[in-house]
């Protein structure tokens, strides 16, 4: 059985383009096609965790990309938690860990491939989102969305330039570094990981010498162990670098690519986030541990970062749309290369393979660049065709959600403030300061964080919370009603379709990190970037002016996913939870008692 997880594949888009997607179309005609009800909220980590475990978010405990720590109300990643070593030894500038630090997945529940493994069914699970660190088992798995780059972020690129027009230094998802060029030569300092073995956590850098020749519109890059030449507009191959933590003893290996955007008049060089080297992984990338090394030996280096498409650089205007497309096609090509390799060696059991490209490209192209997006769909359709060519194989294709335009960004915290639920220390402090920098918690009853969540400032849960448990339900009802009544001042339309209460919509009771109110935006609306990280800008709602024009973090009904198979479905309205149950059933493996889904065939 092959299961293809195609993030963000939209049913409506498919229906519009059946003719251009011959393989998917054939599958629909010979097998079956349904819309797949997505999770609440319809976000990838949430939905794919449900796919993995067969549990609803209340069961697996992941409700968003990010949630807050009730003690500090600061945003933290929902997918994995990194604990530093608790016991350390100081020797000079070094800090040697005596106990090992841990990287832990926050997802609860056993995954379907672990259950298959318990019953001796081999499975290969490639890049399942929210599977970092990979669930412990003997099965072959490669971590997916949620895998950080070597700096521990979800992807921090570096942009080097001497262009005086570029004045920014820090942007979302990247760093901008000023270059000083002397007779054509300069040095790029690429940051390695913060050195946790040093007391000051100074980052280890590697230096890449650049010799640009304006007349040739090309540059030579000198790395410690090799040299290469790039022409303007060319991407380099993967470059490997060792970041030495303690000279001669401990080093961390990373891989990155360099894009020579421009030589003249200004040198503009884009350096991708430093990915964990699959050949010598500094973080747990796969089960068994050597699997990533085997893959690297067979395929050469590949993207290991959870989300590899450079949307941040595109959003920041550093990469143009064509440049973004070139890069995202490189990611797809990388993915397809591994897909073919897995397909070739697949013989029995289960192969799960995940494609991120449609989702990432839809975010940047949705509704505006239909042809470009269709091109990506076509490539994925080609991969589907290759999977269909496997004999005697049951094929299941699913997406975790569909897509919708993202026209208007809602600053929920600003709205909460306007409604009197959130108070600032000083009203003049409104703006983009993140992490609730100026919020007066003594006078705040509710705050928003993440892409769909509102939390009460609850006594006994939040540190210094003010809402008593007795008032909780009344307050929730009151805010919900106001949210449902919230209209866009520009067109007078409802902004929010649905309101969900965690303790009502989920059957699972693992609600520690769940927001108190889950906001189901109407199509076209989404929580703003600022909201996600706890900022309070001036207006409650504004136009989305960014390159990120498509999204799905809305009411679940607005953005269903798809389910396709070469077999007929017996269930009319399949849901996310059904996937795990169906896979287990196909191999005759019993699920756990907590699992919710039904068999779709």
């Amino acid at each position, binding site marked *: 059985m092959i299961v293809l997880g195609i993030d963000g594949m939209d049913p409506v888009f498919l229906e519009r383009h059946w003719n251009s997607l011959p393989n998917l179309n054939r599958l629909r005609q010979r097998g079956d096609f349904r819309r797949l009800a997505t999770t609440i909220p319809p976000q990838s980590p949430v939905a794919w965790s449900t796919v993995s475990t067969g549990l609803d978010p209340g069961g697996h405990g992941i409700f968003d990309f990010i949630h807050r720590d009730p003690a500090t109300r600061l945003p933290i990643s929902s997918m994995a938690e990194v604990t530093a070593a608790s016991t350390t030894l100081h020797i000079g500038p070094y800090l040697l860990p005596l106990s090992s630090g841990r990287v832990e997945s926050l997802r609860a529940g056993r995954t379907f491939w672990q259950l298959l493994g318990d019953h001796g069914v081999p499975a290969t699970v490639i890049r399942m989102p929210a599977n970092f660190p990979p669930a412990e088992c003997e099965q072959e798995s490669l971590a997916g969305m949620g895998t950080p780059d070597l700096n521990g972020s979800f992807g921090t690129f570096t942009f080097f330039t001497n262009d005086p027009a570029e004045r920014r230094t820090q942007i979302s998802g990247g760093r901008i570094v000023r270059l000083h060029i002397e007779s054509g030569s300069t040095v790029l300092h690429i940051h390695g990981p913060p050195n946790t073995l040093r007391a000051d956590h100074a980052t280890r850098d590697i230096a890449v010498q650049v010799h640009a*020749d304006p007349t040739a519109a090309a540059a030579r890059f000198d790395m410690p162990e090799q040299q290469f030449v790039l022409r303007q507009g060319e991407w380099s191959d993967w470059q490997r670098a060792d970041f030495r933590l303690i000279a001669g003893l401990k080093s961390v290996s990373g891989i990155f690519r360099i894009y020579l955007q421009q030589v003249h008049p200004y040198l503009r060089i884009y350096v991708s986030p430093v990915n964990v080297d699959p050949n010598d992984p500094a973080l747990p990338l796969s089960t068994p541990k050597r699997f990533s090394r085997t893959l690297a030996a067979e395929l050469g280096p590949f993207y290991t970062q959870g989300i590899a498409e450079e949307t941040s650089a595109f959003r920041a205007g550093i990469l143009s749309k064509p440049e973004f497309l070139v890069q995202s096609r490189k990611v797809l090509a990388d993915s397809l290369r591994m897909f073919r390799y897995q397909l070739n060696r697949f013989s029995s059991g289960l192969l799960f393979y995940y494609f991120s490209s449609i989702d990432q490209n839809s975010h940047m192209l949705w509704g505006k660049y239909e042809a470009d997006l269709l091109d990506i769909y076509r490539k994925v359709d080609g991969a589907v065709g290759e999977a269909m060519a496997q004999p005697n194989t049951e094929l299941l294709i699913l997406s975790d959600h569909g897509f919708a335009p993202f026209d208007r960004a809602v600053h929920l915290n600003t709205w909460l403030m306007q409604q009197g639920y959130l108070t600032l220390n000083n009203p003049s402090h409104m703006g983009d300061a993140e992490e609730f920098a100026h919020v007066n918690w003594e006078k705040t009853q509710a705050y928003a964080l993440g892409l769909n969540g509102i939390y009460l400032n609850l006594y006994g849960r939040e540190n210094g919370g003010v809402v008593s448990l007795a008032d909780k339900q009344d307050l929730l009802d009151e805010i919900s009603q106001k949210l449902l009544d919230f209209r866009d001042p520009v067109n007078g339309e409802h902004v929010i379709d649905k309101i969900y209460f965690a303790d009502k919509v989920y059957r699972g009771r693992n609600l520690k990190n769940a927001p108190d109110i889950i906001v189901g935006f109407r199509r076209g609306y989404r929580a703003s970037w600022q909201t996600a990280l706890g900022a309070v800008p001036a207006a409650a709602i504004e136009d989305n002016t960014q390159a990120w024009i498509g999204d799905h973090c809305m009411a679940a009904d607005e953005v269903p996913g798809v389910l396709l198979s070469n077999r007929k479905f017996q269930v009319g309205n399949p849901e996310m939870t059904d996937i795990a149950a169906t896979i287990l059933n196909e191999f005759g493996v019993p699920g756990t008692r907590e699992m919710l889904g039904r068999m779709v065939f």
Partner: protein
Amino acid sequence: MDLFHTVVNAVLRAFVALFSWAPPSVGLTIISASAGMGMLWVFRRTSDQARIRRVKKKVYAHLLEMRVYSDEPALTWRAQRSLLKVNVQYLLLTLPPCLFLAVPVAVLLIHVEAFYGRAPLELARPALVTAAFDSGPEGPAPELTIPPQFDISAPPVRVLSEHQVSWRVLPRAPFSGELTFAINGRKVTKRVVAGRGPAFVPGRRVRSVWASFWYPDEPHISAPGIEWIEVSYPGAVISVFGWQIPWLAWFVIVSMLSALLLKKRFGVTL
């Protein structure tokens, strides 16, 4: 210098050709083993064997001393000090053979590097050809004439700060021959090898006669103005019992082992 190197090279080439039927590890193993024996012989001839034997006995004695007098910690420390002292003596005694061996071993290693340390350029993979000059390069880059098996896939990049010019070439088909540079009206050639290894892969070609000791694979350049020309070959690894290791590591392992195994037969104390 050129002549000397040519002779050494020819001998090695003939030797490697003898074992062309076998995987490269076989030839290398034989070279390493014979080098080990040769070095053993030199070691015996150039070291004071009697003193080495005496000093080594002292080393053992002071090791045993710590156990003989384990009831007296003060003596343990004294034995440690004595041990360090005799070790230094031992190292000093091995110094003369090391000095005698340094030059011949260096010559051998530099030559062997061309066979086992470098791989030919991979097809369809860009590689750099870099030329270094005394000054400049002012004005346009010198002209590089390439055989039809190659493409130049990027314009020559002039690195003014280092007086270098780099060309990016793309081998299309297996090739072993010369690249030709037109520099100041003189033609300078550089051998280049592309395809599958193992093969004799000449590294840098230099003008300085003195430096050509370290870069012996091609005769030194006679044209003025140019310092050296280098092709960026990928490094080769040797496959031994499925292990991919650098050739030098294997060389060291085999030569040491052969020396250790044969030292009794040669009557040498190491």
